[in-house]
């Protein structure tokens, strides 16, 4: 609702609409990102597949069921403890395919490079990209390079598009969670986000935090092949665990009850978050995922996952419930309950 100036002078003021220009917070993965997608893109570009907003689309081509996804990487700084923009661009897209039960096979990539970017750094990014492709068992089949003027990009932006073959039936999807299901996370939270943040200029933190950036297909595909197929899988990226859980709860029209004491958070991440007034449940990971599993086989699924090094810290963190569809409720460490909502914008460090 907006009032014109004359009305505003005599009646109650309302703030101007925040959606008039794009702000950085529109990219944070929270409510503002959703509003951008729902108010601008989906009405113009939406269709039955896109509207599902899953990590990757699943489509049938002849006898083949394939998954396709695309993602852009604009991380700053481009080199951070535990990874860089090259490896991240491979892992992120591989993981989005994997979350739909697909075996990632091929990538296409675009490198947008800012004038003045050192060739040595470009070499380093490309080398890291290549190594990540090898360790993720994917091949780069098409690529493009663009150079833009100084200031038109921040050093280098990478976009990757991935294709994989879906090998399981039914296909895990965000709208398949059911009351009674068990919610599992594959490892400790917040490492990637805090590794990037701690290495940013202006934050003199000496930590050993390394990004968890890693391909999840080596962990997930063998478990799927054993027949343990989650109803839904989502990798925990931008917006953190809280955002992913809210998206699943909304897509599936179910509630969720999460036990805070069960959520694994790296102690250093927890300490830095505490220092800055941030909540680790909203911090990005790049090698962790949430699985929603039928309670009847969740024990076996968890035990199998724990057998892999990448899944050794997997934990049950809660369950899907009928009450309050679309809502995630957290039982805090001391036993009180509160809503675990999506973020309104970016997490802003607290004053005191």
């Amino acid at each position, binding site marked *: *609702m907006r009032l014109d100036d004359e009305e505003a002078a005599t*009646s*109650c*003021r*309302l*703030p*101007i*609409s*925040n959606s008039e*220009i*794009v*702000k*950085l*917070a529109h990219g944070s993965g929270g*409510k*503002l990102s959703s*509003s951008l997608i729902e108010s601008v893109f989906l009405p113009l570009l939406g269709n039955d597949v896109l509207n599902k907003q899953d990590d990757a689309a699943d489509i049938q081509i002849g006898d083949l069921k394939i998954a396709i996804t695309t993602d852009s990487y604009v991380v700053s700084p481009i080199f951070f403890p535990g990874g860089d923009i090259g490896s991240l661009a491979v892992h992120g897209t591989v993981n989005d395919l994997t979350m739909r039960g697909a075996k990632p096979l091929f990538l296409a990539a675009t490198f947008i490079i800012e004038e003045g970017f050192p060739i040595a750094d470009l070499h380093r990014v490309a080398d890291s990209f290549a190594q990540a492709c090898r360790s993720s068992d994917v091949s780069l089949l098409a690529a493009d390079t663009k150079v833009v003027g100084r200031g038109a990009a921040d050093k280098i932006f990478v976009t990757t598009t991935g294709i994989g073959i879906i090998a399981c039936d039914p296909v895990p999807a965000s709208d398949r969670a059911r009351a009674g299901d068990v919610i599992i996370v594959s490892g400790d939270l917040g490492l990637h986000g805090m590794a990037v943040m701690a290495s940013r200029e*202006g*934050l003199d933190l000496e930590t050993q935090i390394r990004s968890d950036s890693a391909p999840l297909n080596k962990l997930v595909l063998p478990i799927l092949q054993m027949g343990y197929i989650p109803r839904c899988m989502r990798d925990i990226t931008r917006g953190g665990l809280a955002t992913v859980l809210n998206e699943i709860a909304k897509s599936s029209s179910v*509630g969720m*009850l999460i036990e805070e*004491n069960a959520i694994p958070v790296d*102690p250093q991440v*927890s*300490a830095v978050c*505490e220092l*800055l*007034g941030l909540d680790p449940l909203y911090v990005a990971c790049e090698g962790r995922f949430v699985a929603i599993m039928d309670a009847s086989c969740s024990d076996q699924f968890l035990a199998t996952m724990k057998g892999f090094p990448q899944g050794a810290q997997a934990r049950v963190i809660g369950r899907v*419930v009928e*009450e*309050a569809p679309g*809502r995630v*409720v*957290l*039982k*805090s*460490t*001391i*036993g*009180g*309950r*509160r*809503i675990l*909502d999506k973020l*309104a*914008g970016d997490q*802003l*460090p*607290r*004053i*005191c």
Partner: protein
Amino acid sequence: MKYQAEFRDRQLAEQLSLQIKKAITRPWKIMEVCGGQTHTILQFGLEDLLPSELELLHGPGCPVCVTPVSLIDKAIEIAKTADVIFTSYGDMLRVPGSSCDLLQARALGADVRIVYSPLDAVELAKKYPSKRIVFFAVGFETTAPANAMSVHLADKLGLTNYFVLCSHVTVPPVMSSLLEQPDNIVQAFLGPGHVCSIMGVEEYREICQRYKVPIVISGFEPIDILEAILMALLQLERGECRLENQYARAVVTAGNLHAQQVMSEVFSLSERIWRGLGPIPESGYRLAEKYREFDAQNEFPEVISERAESCICISGEILRGLKKPPQCPAFAKECTPETPLGATMVSSEGTCANYYKFKNTQIN
């Protein structure tokens, strides 16, 4: 983790909860002064552990919330100046002025940067001598020493391009002001632990004696707050009104003398306008005359007139503990963290934002 997990322990919380339930014989209203305490109470669902007779009132101790709109507008105007790098703690960026916020100003081209310490802003002043670096010095007595130090340092370095837009407020005058209101309903306070770690506790002892109200200086972890509630409740039940210090691991009687010294050198007391509460005499700091050249108000003298705030918003009554956010007709309707009508909806320490984020609905 040391000093964190121990203070979030469920068993200990349940024991304290039981003691509180045993001790209470009639309804009481206790106000936690600090936004940080409000945040903990709602983040941990702490009220679920309290008896229904005990009501927590959420106080005015969120510096972001009480900063007047005119000052936010001034900050935005300064930030838009071509040769200015405007620096601020993160929370302030999303606080709505009368036409936009600092994040929006940044999106439109202003150079607005989040810093984690004012000393980072001084570094920027050294790095960019041709720019004017303005730091938005907001906060209670907790942030004041570092902000004072930044001015002291800029002076020592001979910097002429570092300025602070000062909006410091102090806790004791607002507590007195609340207690002097004819409609005051506060019966005891949980005192501001971090403020007291700087300023010591004597000012609060005076308030206890003058207004006959129990004050328990409290920490910020759930166990701290539960223990402080129990201490305050026992005083209320016994008819006592003493100052007690629950947060002894951080607060000593005299406070941090070195910090107090820097503050008294750089700042002088002044009247402040509190958003939602109005002017309170000697309730904040401005730069002392000696440091006038670092004052952004002096460097950027254009006056910004006070503009009307939303007439629906009841943040004044919320800051005084008279009303709870769901009693506001705009709460979670026109007013949300994405479109805040009043500043209590903005900061992570603001009562409305905390209610919206943590308590919007219930599930059993």
